[in-house]
C-alpha cells in the first residue's frame, strides 16, 4: 500500500497518508470517508492558526459529501472515481457555488459565486470532499502569498519562510498534512514554485488541458489550473479527475486527457531507458543558489542512473521570458480586473448617494486592490496604450513565439526538459516584499512553459545542503504530452524514496505549531 518499506511512526494518522492510500482504505470500507474528512478538519483546526493555508473551511459541506460517499459505498455502488471520498483543498481563485471565493482580495470579500467552476464541478462529481479554500497572493499575483489581503501563509518547513506563491496556501496545506490533495493555478509558476519550496508535487498541465471556466482570470492566455499533491501518483489521479475538454472554455483542448496515471505506473518501475532528457542551459548557473544547483545536478545524475539519455539543450529565447511575461500578464490583468467596479458584486466604497458611479468605481478600486495588483494594472494599462502597444505588448508576443520555437526545436531531440523549479529555496517572509524585481525572479524557470503553453511540473528533489529547505526539480513536456513528464517524475520519486528510506515530505519538522500563534508570527512580517 505504502510506497515506502520503512513504516512511518505517523502512519496510523490518516492525514499522513497519500490520497491513493486513503482512497483504497475508503473504497474497501476499512475507514470511512467521514473519518478521513474529520481527521483533516481536526488537523486544520490544530495547525492552520499557525500555517494559515486556508481562507475558508466548510466542515459541514465536507462532512455531508463524505457521508454521501460512505452511503453510496455501503449501498454497494462503485466509487464515483478513484479519488472518491478523498479530501481536497481548492485555491480561492476557483468559484464554488454558495461558498466564498475571494481571490485573496478585499475586492471580493463576502462574494458568494452563483456557480461552480468546471474544476470544482468535476471534483464534486468525482466524489472528492472539498475541505475549503486556500490562501493565495491577491488575484494570483505574487510568489509568496504575502500579497494576500488576509495575511500570508507560512511554510510548514520553517514558519518564518514563505510557502511560495501565488498558490502558497494549497502547497502549505499539503506540506502541513491539512489536505492530501489540492488544486492550484499556475500563470507564471504559481503551482510549481510553491510545490518546490514546500517539498510537494505541483503540476501545470498543458494550457487548455484543464478548463479555466470559473477560474477568476489573472492572465487568460497563461492561467492554468492543475493538481497539487504529496506524491506524483496522487497528482496524476487528480489530474485525470479535473482534466479534459470543456465546451464552456473555448481555449480548452478537445482531446482526451493524456494518460498520466498509466505513465506514473510505468515510471514507478524505475526504468527510464530510451527516455531523452534535455537540461536547459539557460535555466541554471549564475544567480542560482548553490545548494539548489547541487540538488539539481544530483537529480540529473539520478535520471541518468535510471537509464535516461541526458543532453544539454539551449533555449536562447528563454532569457527574454521574464520580461515578456511582465508585459503580457499585466496587460491581460489590466483588462480582466476592470470588471471589479462595485457595480454588481463585491466591495463598494463611497456610495453615499451623492457620488457618481465613476467616483464610486474609483474609490472602490483604490480601497479594494492591494499594491501589487495596482502595480500590475498600471503596468498593463501602459503597455496596451496606443503608441506603446507595438513596443511592449506586440514585442512580448513576438518573444512568446520565439520561446515556443525554442521548445519545439528542443522537443525534436528530447522527450522532456529539466531545470531547477526555482533559483532559490524558500525565502523569509518580508525579505522581498519591497523588492518586486527580486520577487519576480522566483518565477524565472517556470515562466517559459506558461508562455509556450506546454506542460511542466515540479517534483521534490531533496533538501538544499546549506539551509535544509526543499528544492524542486522541474520537468517540462510538449503540449498534450503531459504523461511524459509524469513518467520521468514518478521514476525519479521512486529512486529518491529508495535512496532516502521514505518520502522527504514525511520529514517536515514537527514544530509545536499550535503554540506558534498568528499574532506572534505576524509581528515578524
Amino acid at each position, binding site marked *: 500500500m505504502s510506497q515506502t518499506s520503512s513504516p512511518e511512526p505517523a502512519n496510523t494518522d490518516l492525514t499522513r497518508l497519500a490520497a491513493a492510500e486513503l482512497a483504497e482504505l475508503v473504497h474497501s470500507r476499512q475507514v470511512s470517508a467521514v473519518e478521513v474528512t474529520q481527521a483533516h478538519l481536526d488537523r486544520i483546526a490544530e495547525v492552520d492558526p499557525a500555517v494559515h493555508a486556508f481562507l475558508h473551511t466548510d466542515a459541514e459541506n465536507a462532512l455531508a459529501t463524505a457521508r454521501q460517499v460512505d452511503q453510496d459505498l455501503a449501498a454497494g455502488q462503485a466509487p464515483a472515481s478513484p479519488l472518491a471520498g478523498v479530501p481536497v483543498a481548492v485555491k480561492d481563485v476557483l468559484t464554488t457555488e454558495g461558498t466564498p471565493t475571494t481571490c485573496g482580495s478585499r475586492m471580493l470579500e463576502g462574494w458568494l459565486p452563483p456557480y461552480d467552476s468546471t474544476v470544482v464541478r468535476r471534483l464534486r462529481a468525482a466524489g472528492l470532499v472539498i475541505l475549503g479554500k486556500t490562501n493565495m497572493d491577491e488575484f494570483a499575483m505574487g510568489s509568496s502569498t504575502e500579497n494576500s489581503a488576509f495575511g500570508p501563509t507560512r511554510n510548514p518547513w520553517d514558519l518564518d519562510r514563505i510557502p511560495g506563491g501565488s498558490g502558497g496556501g494549497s502547497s502549505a496545506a499539503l506540506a502541513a498534512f491539512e489536505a492530501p490533495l489540492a488544486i492550484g493555478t499556475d500563470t507564471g509558476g504559481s503551482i510549481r514554485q510553491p510545490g518546490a519550496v514546500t517539498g510537494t508535487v505541483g503540476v501545470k498541465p498543458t494550457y487548455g488541458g484543464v478548463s479555466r471556466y470559473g477560474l477568476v482570470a489573472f492572465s487568460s492566455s497563461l492561467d492554468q489550473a492543475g493538481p497539487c499533491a504529496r506524491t506524483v501518483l496522487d497528482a496524476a489521479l487528480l489530474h485525470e479527475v479535473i482534466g479534459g475538454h470543456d465546451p464552456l472554455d473555448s481555449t480548452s483542448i478537445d482531446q482526451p486527457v493524456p494518460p498520466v496515471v498509466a505513465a506514473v505506473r510505468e515510471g514507478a518501475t524505475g526504468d527510464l531507458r530510451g527516455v531523452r532528457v534535455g537540461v536547459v542551459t539557460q535555466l541554471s548557473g549564475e544567480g542560482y543558489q548553490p545548494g539548489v544547483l547541487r540538488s539539481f545536478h544530483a537529480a540529473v545524475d539520478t535520471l541518468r542512473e535510471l537509464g535516461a539519455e541526458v543532453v544539454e539543450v539551449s533555449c536562447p529565447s528563454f532569457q527574454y521570458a521574464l520580461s515578456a511575461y511582465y508585459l503580457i500578464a499585466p496587460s*491581460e490583468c489590466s483588462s480582466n480586473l*476592470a470588471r471589479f467596479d462595485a457595480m454588481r458584486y463585491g466591495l463598494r466604497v463611497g456610495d453615499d448617494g451623492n457620488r457618481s458611479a465613476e467616483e464610486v468605481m474609483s474609490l472602490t478600486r483604490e480601497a479594494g486592490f492591494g499594491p501589487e495588483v495596482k502595480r500590475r494594472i498600471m503596468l498593463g494599462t501602459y503597455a496596451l496604450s496606443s503608441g506603446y502597444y507595438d513596443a511592449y505588448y506586440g514585442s512580448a508576443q513576438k518573444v512568446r513565439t520565439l520561446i515556443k520555437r525554442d521548445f519545439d526545436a528542443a522537443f525534436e531531440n528530447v522527450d522532456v526538459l529539466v531545470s531547477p523549479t526555482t533559483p532559490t529555496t524558500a525565502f523569509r517572509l518580508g525579505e522581498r516584499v519591497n523588492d518586486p524585481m527580486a520577487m519576480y525572479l522566483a518565477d524565472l524557470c517556470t515562466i517559459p512553459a506558461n508562455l509556450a503553453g506546454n506542460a511542466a511540473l515540479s517534483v521534490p528533489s531533496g533538501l538544499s545542503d546549506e539551509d535544509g529547505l526543499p528544492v524542486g526539480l522541474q520537468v517540462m513536456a510538449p503540449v498534450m504530452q503531459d504523461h511524459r513528464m509524469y513518467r520521468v517524475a514518478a521514476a525519479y520519486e521512486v529512486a529518491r524514496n529508495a535512496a532516502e528510506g521514505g518520502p522527504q515530505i514525511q520529514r517536515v519538522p514537527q514544530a509545536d505549531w499550535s503554540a506558534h500563534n498568528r499574532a506572534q508570527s505576524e509581528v515578524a512580517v
Partner: protein
Amino acid sequence: MSASVAVTELMDYDEVVQRFDPVLGLEVHVELSTNTKMFCGCENAFGGEPNTKVCPVCLGLPGSLPVVNGKAVESAIRIGLALNCDIAEWCRFARKNYFYPDMPKNFQTSQYDEPIAVNGWLDVVLDDGEVVRVEIERAHMEEDTGKSLHVGGSTGRIHGAEHSLLDYNRAGVPLIEIVTKPIVGTGARAPEVARAYVTALRDLLRALGVSDVRMDQGSLRCDANVSLMAKGAAEFGTRTETKNVNSLRSVERAVRYEMTRQAAVLANGGRVVQETRHFDESTGSTSSGRTKETAEDYRYFPEPDLVPVAPSREWVEELRATLPELPWERLKRIQTEWQLTDPELRDLVNAGAVELVAETVAAGAGPAEARSWWVSYLTQQANTRGVDLADLPITPVQLARVIALVAEGSLTNKLAREVVDGVLAGEGEPDQVVEARGLKVVSDDSALLAAVDEALAAQPDIAEKIRSGKVAAAGAIVGAVMKATKGQADAKRVRELVLSRCTG
C-alpha cells in the same frame, strides 16, 4: 464657438452645397435575431423583465468565459456575402477596454483590426432612379451592452440623474457593425443617399432573415459621420458622429442638419469639433454629446479567452450558394414578370409598395391591377391619413378579393373603390361591405330592362337615333341607366340591352 452657443447658427442648405462637399461615413449596428446571445446560452429577445435573461457569462461574473455563437458567425458571413465582401479565412475578437456601468466586464468583446468581412459594396437606388454605389469597408461581430435607465434629472441622460438602473438583458446580444468607406461626391443628395443606404441595408438584412431590423426597438441603429470640405479641397474636414438616429427619416434629417450646422461654423471661421453628437427627433437638431477631455484610448488587444474564427472555404461557399433572393435580384425578377418599365418600377419602389403588390399578386390578383390600386388609390388614402402604405387597415388578401370581384363582373371600378373605403373604415371583409352597403352590380336583366325602357321612354329622340343606326347615341341612354341604378349596373351589359331593345 459651436456647441456652447445657445442658438446654433445654420446655413441655408442651397448655400451649403454650393460652397462645400459633404463626406459621409455610416456605421450601422444590427442586432442579430439568433436564439441565444453572442457568447452564452441566454435567450436573445427584446425587452422582458429587467435582468431575467442573464447568466454568469453575460453578467461578466468573475471566472466566466465566452463561447462564440456559431449561428451569429453564420449570420455575419451571410451579411458579408450579400454585401459583396471578402470573408476572412481567419479572424479574431479583441477587447475594447473602457469603463461604463452597463458594460459588465468593462470591456466589449468586439472584432477590431481583424473583421470577418471586408471590402464590399451595396448599390443604392435613389428616388429618381439614380444608382449610387456605397463601398463597404467592413462588417464585424461584437456584443451589445446592457441598458442604463437614468432616473431623475431632466434629460434622461446620466448627467444630472439622481440614480441609474441597469438592465443586462441586452448585454451580450450579438451585433454586426457594418461600416462604409467614406461616401464622397454625393453633393446635395448626401442626406438622401444616407437614408437610401440605410433603407437598402434594412431591406437586405430583412431578406436575409438575420435581424428584426426594427429601428424603433434598436435592432437597427445608425451612427452618421458627417464632415464638410470646401469645394475642390482634397482633404476631408473634421467629422462629427451623430448617434440616436432612430428612423430612416431621421437619418436624412440628421445628415442635413449637421451639414447646415457645420457649414455655418466653418463660414464663421470656426472649427468643427470632433465629437459625438446626439440627434433629437422632436427638433430635428443635433447637440454635443459628452465632451471628451482626453482622446479615448480603448487599449485594444486580441481577446485571449477566444480562439480565432476560421470559417472554411467550403462553408463560405455553401452559405453563398444558399443565400436567399436579394432585394435587387427580386426587383429585377419582378420587373420582368410584371412587365414594368423602369419608371413604373421606380414608382412602385418609391411608394414602398413592392411587398404589398407582391402579396396581393400572391393572393390571386393580376400584377397590373394590384400595382394600380396600391400605387394610386391606396397611396392617396395613405397620404390623406398620414400613415405608411403598409399601415393602412387593408390587407393584400382583402384587396385581392376586391380585384377578383371586379374581374368577375360583380363590381365596377367605382363600386370597388367604395368597397375598399368600407374595408378601410373598418366595416369588415370586402364581401361583408358589398353586402352591407348593397354595392353588388345589378346583373338581373329584367330589372335592368325596366330601367332601360324607362330611359328610352324618357328620351324618345335619342331612342329614335339609335333605332336609325346611330349606335354612338346609346351612350346617353347607358349613362341614364347607370345613374338610375346608382352605378350598380354593369355598363357593358346595359349597352347590350339598350342596343338589343332598339334593334330587336
